[in-house]
């Protein structure tokens, strides 16, 4: 009996160890591997790449560049792990980190958070030279900016405007509201919003915050953190009152269940007349319906000033600290970054999502009339350039957990017809709590 039991234990232990070793061999397959490569060349280097792949045009542009790079460099293999369908890119990145799959080369958006955590390293100095004054965090450049921040504005259906008898673009915010009334009266839903994806909420929220807060005070975030400014302040309440009014009166009924990638379809199908978004949507719209005629303009504030997103922010291709420990991998990543920003490659990427180049070297591509309007905004010194609430850094960095909560709270405020001042009080409390929690 004892002998039988002992045999049983042995068999179980063996089985368990086999299972565990099988589990072990499955991970860590993305390594620098030496030996004969398929082309018969020397060492083959492999690294992973991760980026926000929610925008199909950007995803295709990057994956095409990766393919071309690998064709040109058969000794380097790039594994694209950007299967992120999560509504928040940060959720995806954090999950990848938790399971030990943090990309070797990553499109970084929360630079300061990941730099403080020691997950990323500075951009090598020879790469920094490629760019025109890239932003610094703690006096260091961490990212190779994929493109400069582009302005957001109204992408409108020319047909819907003509049908509603709209001939002139608005010069003030009140004129913009008059246009919304005309569109509504013509029987079309004035605005489509992809509110299911929480980042999309930021487009409108930040339009109002920039007009009423950041255009006049770019350091508002640091003042809020130091409790020298508050969401209950008159300017913020005004911004959020305008936001609520617009959403309750002129936004398509299905906005809370519409994902960002469906907004182009809603626009071209004629279900809505306008979309507030960035220039990257132009290619999606043209792909959805090449014959769709659209225009683009920035929404002015009440005094007729135009304020848009357009300042540089610390974001872009970044090397992970883990990858930087491997000189071969680092060299391969550096050569990919150089390749990516070569004018002939970079122009294809920029053209696919109507981006603005971040490199010193001149990059040209054919801009559509709508894109030209966006470029004119960027070149106009009268137009105030600013950033979204979560894109500031240094003293102006907000608690990383605040943005999504804030946008969701605003959704709740709109659907429950909540009192703006009451909601701003709650938002102040939550912000202060998060600052306190993060200081612990």
């Amino acid at each position, binding site marked *: 009996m004892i002998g039988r039991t002992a045999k049983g234990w042995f068999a179980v232990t063996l089985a368990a160890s086999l299972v565990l070793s099988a589990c072990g061999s499955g991970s860590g397959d993305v390594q620098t591997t030496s030996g004969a490569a398929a082309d018969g060349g020397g060492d083959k280097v492999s690294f992973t790449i991760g980026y926000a792949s929610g925008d199909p045009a950007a995803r295709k542009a990057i994956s095409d560049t990766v393919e071309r790079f690998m064709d040109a460099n058969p000794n380097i293999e790039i594994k694209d792990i950007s299967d992120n369908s999560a509504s928040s890119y940060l959720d995806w990145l*954090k999950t990848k980190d938790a399971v030990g799959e943090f990309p070797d080369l990553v499109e970084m958006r929360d630079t300061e958070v990941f730099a403080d955590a020691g997950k990323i390293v500075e951009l090598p100095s020879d790469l920094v030279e490629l760019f025109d004054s890239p932003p610094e965090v703690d006096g260091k450049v961490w990212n190779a900016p994929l493109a400069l921040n582009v302005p957001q504005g109204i992408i409108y259906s020319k047909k819907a405007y003509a049908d509603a008898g709209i001939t002139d673009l608005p010069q003030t915010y009140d004129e913009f509201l008059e246009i919304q009334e005309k569109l509504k009266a013509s029987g079309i839903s004035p605005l489509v919003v992809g509110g299911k994806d929480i980042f999309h909420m930021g487009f409108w929220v930040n339009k109002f915050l920039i007009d009423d807060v950041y255009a006049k005070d770019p350091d508002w975030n640091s003042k809020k953190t130091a409790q020298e400014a508050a969401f209950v302040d008159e300017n913020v309440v005004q911004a959020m009152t305008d936001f609520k009014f617009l959403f309750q009166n002129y936004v398509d009924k299905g906005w809370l269940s*519409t994902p960002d990638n469906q907004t182009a379809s809603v626009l071209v199908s004629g279900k809505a007349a306008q979309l507030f978004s960035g220039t990257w949507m132009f290619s999606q719209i043209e792909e959805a319906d090449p014959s769709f005629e659209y225009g683009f303009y920035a929404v002015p504030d009440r005094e007729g000033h135009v304020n848009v997103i357009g300042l540089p922010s610390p974001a872009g291709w970044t090397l992970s600290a883990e990858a930087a420990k491997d000189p071969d991998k680092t060299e391969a990543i550096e050569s990919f970054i150089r390749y990516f920003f070569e004018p002939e490659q970079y122009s294809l990427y920029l053209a696919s999502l109507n981006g603005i180049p971040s490199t010193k070297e001149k990059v040209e591509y054919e801009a559509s009339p709508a894109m030209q309007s966006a470029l004119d905004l960027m070149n106009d010194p009268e137009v105030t350039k600013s950033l979204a609430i979560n894109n500031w850094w240094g003293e102006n960095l907000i608690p990383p957990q605040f943005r999504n*909560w804030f946008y969701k709270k605003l959704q*709740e405020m709109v659907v429950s017809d909540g009192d703006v001042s009451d909601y701003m009080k709650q938002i102040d409390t939550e912000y202060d709590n998060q600052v306190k929690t993060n200081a612990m």
Partner: protein
Amino acid sequence: MGTPASTAGLRIKEKSRRKKSSANSFALIFILPSLVLYTLFVIVPTLGSVYLSFTSWDGISEDIRFIGLANFAEIWQSPRVHNALKNTLILTVSLVLLENVAAIAMALMVDRVRWFKNLFRSLFYFPTLLSGVVMGFVWTMILNYNFGVFNQILNAVGLGSWALDWLGNPDYAMVSIILSTVWKGAGYYMIIYLAGLQGIPTELSEAASIDGANSRQQFRFITFPLLAGSLTVCMVLSTISALKIFDQIAVMTDGGPGFATETLTYIIYKVGFGELRQGFGTALALVLFVLILIVTVIQVQVLRKREVQH
């Protein structure tokens, strides 16, 4: 010194004890692989997470600071957590009731129907084969406000005014999640109830029928009491499953609109991963663990009492 009869009795007891012990050892061999893996991948990380729940770890940095009971104090005071708990309870009670009622109804139908028995059994069971994510995507497409089949049918039959933003309206988003989850889950419990129904001796129903009991009385006084074993299993499983619901919410509503469908499991993920508060998320996970434990123990105790042996 005992009598011959008592000695024989002791021998029989000893023999029976040895037989039982041998059977237990043999059973242990089969259990052990699962036990080892479960301990390694569930018990050990769970115990490890207890420490994390007392820290302010963001989940990415190496700086793990001990903050005592601060996370638990925040859970106690946080309106967001209270809202998630309320949503979890609404979801759990609704799902447990609806899934079990639907499962019993389907099991009775499949058990009694004369024709197409296998077809109905397959049709009812099929949704359970879908993953929660796939099911979520399917229902998201069906219920989409602009392009969804459901609203298009309503428009086509002249009921356009009934077309709503089913997943974007706080009043209907939870209902949509509950109904789609019942659609997916009831078939699984149906199989358990069906096994229970087929184990009930037919003589009981026949005798009741001869005594003049109608079908409703037969169900109430014979079938339902004798299904108590299946009911215990299904109630416990459906409760645990409802308390842990995640996939459908992640895909269909992302916890929204606002926080209208945010549940405890979803908030654990959101704060732990999206909001870089692993310590707080872990504390919440422990609270959920305790909640499930308490609910399950109470449920088993209550339901076991009403089980009938036959």
